[in-house]
């Protein structure tokens, strides 16, 4: 398959060169499987095999692109696509800067994050996994929702500037299992990310769900008072906040366009707690990493924050071209973010609940519908969801209705960070918009932040 893809790209390159076109080819292929559960049934079982070819044509400072969903048998259709892009670019308007056309110094192929057993997982295996994850937990009132999304993604690139090609293939699975009360409307979740089949294990999901269910079934939910709380964020919530930071934090292009909470003069300065070390680390196999970016730059671990000190912005090639910055190997479908673990041993929710505490702790595992209220200040807003708990200092436990947090990321990751768990986990952050793009962020299982304000507290679910 790999050879056939690269051969096709070489054919298209030759076709473009014959006609004097300057092009870049981006090939994306996915084999996607999704088993979706709702109301304790399989509500959807689907698969898609799709090949997308994006052809970007250049003519001096002009640039235009054409994308088609195609098939490897349809070489003539792809060639027509090359002609369309070449025609389009004639009518584009020149950019006010020189766009870089990549030239690869050597061919590169990376299939290290590919596991055929995961990519080809059978329907029966997925169903068996789910059945085990919720075995004995479903009732007429407690119904299962969730997804088992798995598959493989191929990304390959070629261009007319060099004869070399790049090829990347990864397998991935994203699992989440939700048990929701049909009438009381509370919900609990357990999640897993997998890069290879060996990563799949329904037991931790079952354990987490069983533990939360016991709490939720014995306690009555309460509206908690507004005010400041020491909040322990779970891995999903931490990953979600880092995802937003990826957008309004350390992106050079966002910063230049006024859409960032960090300014240029913050480089080298302490902006977060010294407990915060965040790296874009392509050695983290669980993050489906790219070892080369799409312009051919080798990707090495790139420190973003080291003990709270901001190390520098990342530059996507086009932003680097526009603003005269040096590209940093970040022209990729996704980064490989890893937030380092801390000093405190808390491997599980049970361990967190069992920890001695001097103050109440609000545990928020998941932040729903996060959005940016003010990018310049880093202010985000989101609501808690899926199994929040108020751990009282006397050792007792309250189930809270959902609450809203409207806060600056600068504040959340500031010196208010009390501790991070030593244990980390790869948290799957893949979205199912558009082309398949498996993403995960490695984060501590828990992060405790002191004195964050809860601005809205629900009186029901």
């Amino acid at each position, binding site marked *: 398959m790999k050879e056939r893809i690269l051969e096709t790209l070489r054919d298209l390159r030759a076709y473009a060169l014959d006609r004097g076109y300057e092009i870049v080819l981006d090939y994306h292929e996915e084999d996607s499987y999704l088993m979706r559960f709702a109301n304790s049934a*399989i509500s959807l079982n689907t698969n898609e095999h799709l090949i997308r070819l994006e052809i970007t044509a250049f003519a001096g400072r002009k640039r235009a692109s054409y994308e088609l969903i195609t098939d490897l048998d349809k070489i003539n259709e792809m060639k027509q696509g090359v002609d369309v892009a070449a025609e389009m670019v004639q009518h584009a308007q020149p950019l006010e800067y020189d766009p870089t056309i990549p030239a690869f110094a050597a061919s590169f192929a990376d299939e290290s994050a590919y596991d055929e057993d995961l990519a080809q997982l059978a329907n029966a295996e997925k169903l068996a996994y789910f059945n085990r994850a919720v075995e004995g937990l479903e009732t007429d009132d407690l119904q299962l929702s969730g997804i088992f999304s798995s598959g493989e993604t191929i990304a390959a690139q070629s261009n007319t500037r060099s004869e070399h090609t790049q090829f990347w293939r990864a397998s991935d699975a994203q699992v989440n299992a939700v048990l929701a009360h049909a009438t009381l409307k509370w919900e609990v979740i357990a999640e897993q990310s997998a890069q290879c089949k060996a990563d799949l294990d329904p037991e931790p999901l079952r354990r987490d769900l069983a533990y939360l269910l016991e709490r939720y079934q014995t306690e009555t939910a309460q509206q908690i008072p507004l005010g400041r709380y020491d909040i322990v964020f779970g891995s999903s919530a931490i990953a979600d906040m880092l995802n937003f930071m990826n957008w309004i934090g350390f992106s050079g292009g966002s910063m230049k366009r006024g859409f960032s909470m960090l300014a240029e003069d913050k480089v080298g300065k302490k902006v977060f707690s010294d407990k915060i070390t965040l790296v874009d680390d392509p050695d983290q196999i669980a993050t489906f990493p790219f070892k080369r970016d799409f312009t051919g730059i080798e990707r090495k671990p790139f420190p973003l924050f080291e003990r709270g000190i901001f190390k520098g912005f990342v530059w996507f090639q086009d932003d680097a071209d526009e603003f005269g910055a040096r590209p940093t190997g970040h022209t990729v479908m996704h980064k490989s973010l890893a937030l380092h673990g801390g000093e405190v041993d808390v491997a599980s929710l049970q361990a967190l609940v069992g920890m001695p505490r001097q103050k109440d702790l609000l545990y928020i595992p998941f932040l729903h519908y996060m959005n940016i209220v003010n990018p310049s200040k880093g202010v985000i807003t989101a609501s808690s969801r899926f199994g929040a708990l108020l751990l009282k200092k006397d050792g007792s436990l309250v189930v809270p209705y959902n609450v809203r947090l409207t806060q600056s990321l600068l504040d959340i990751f500031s010196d208010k960070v009390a501790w991070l768990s030593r244990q980390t986990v790869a948290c799957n952050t893949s979205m199912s918009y558009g082309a398949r793009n498996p993403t995960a962020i490695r984060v501590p299982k828990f992060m405790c932040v002191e004195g964050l304000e809860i601005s809205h507290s629900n009186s029901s679910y």
Partner: protein
Amino acid sequence: MIEQLKQQIERIKAQGATYVDARWYPFEESNQLVMLNGNLKNASASRESGVGIRVLYQGAWGFSASSDLGDLGALFDKALDNARVAAERVTFPIRLAEKDAVQATFSSPCEVNPFEVPLADKVAFLKEMDDKLKQEGVFLRFSRLNFIRKQIVFVDSEGSEIEKLITEVFAGLEVDGKDAQGMTHERKFTLGQQGKPTRGWESIDRQLFAQNAERIVRELKEMLVADDCPKEDRSVILLPGIMFLQTHETIGHALELDRILGYELAFAGGSFVTLDDFGKLRYGSPKLTARANATVPNSPGSFGFDDDGIPAKDTVLIDKGVLVGAITGRQMVEEANARARKPIFDGSGGANRATSFYRVPIERMTNINIDPGTDGTLDDIVARTEKGIVLDGERSWSIGSNREQFHFATDIGWLVDEGKVTRVVKNATYKGDTLKFWNSLSAVGDESTWELKFVDNCGKGQPNQVMQLGHGVPVCRFDNVRIGE
């Protein structure tokens, strides 16, 4: 091709399927252009074609799709296989509400096919707008065009055969500026229906865009020297540029029947609405009448027939404040009626749509509209407001997982004191609990305030589907709302 699809449908039915349909897209093309600070950042086009197959077998769905039509038999078999697996875990066997078989065609109104307009003309339009936006105080200027054209052929095992040709035009302008503290603010204009009967390239009205370019630059400049929005309780007067989003998020999504029945719990969330609420729940004040109206002429939410083959309908959702309807398709109305043990819904509301051939149809908003009211013009409403704020422009939105509460940030706010607009404020936000908020609706503007807004990016479902739809809304006032938080 249609004959081949029909033969395959018959073949799969003969293997025990109770229902089969095929959506064949001979083509779907798109063209997106973005100019940012004079640079044509994005000049892209795409084209795809393919077919999606849905099979209902022993009460469970199976779906399969491909752009490769070379082996239709294998594609139908795969959909049937997927349904067989799903049939191993069924709690409520899927049934589809009755419908009439339809042989019909639908074309969305379009005079000039935007795909036949030379790229150079589109670029020239963006350049013209960019020049108008290029003024002192404007730090970033965006001009956008987005065109979609698709042909969809629907065939099902109940004898329906429908062909649709849909053309969509979306366009907008945005300016961003920095205040004295270096904080970014934005102001936008998005093309809506503007009372036009068609929506091809002809809807790109240069004069309309030029007027709005001038307005958003002026308003941005006012904001850059304005004070922050105060943190207090006031009446909020929502202009259509934010009212559409309020309606979208806290009426539209909350009343999708699949959400109400728990089919989106793993991701998007549920709804605070229960089946018991229909016919009783006081959703809003008596001034509120909302409907899902797919029969509005010329809107992305009007598409002739949904992907179950149901003709466009005008369904009242909230009648003078009382919840009476939902956004529905064939499957969910049957399940809802069975679960409620009474006929809440009389057949499908015709709102089941898929975003592409390779996605499965789900309940989607059509045009979720609010009827105009009797409280006069915007000026009339302002004149009768003691302490309020006029808000416009969507900047950020975040809604609770059951749509029970929300937080919105807007582009701009104008404080109103004792019936008069006093001054502009920046960083305006408001938040509330959905039912309390809609029940505080105290004024609904007349026809002069009503606008039909287009939405080209509503996301829902797993795998996610981006959908186009519309919202026709008047200016509305809500009382005792917390702002500035």
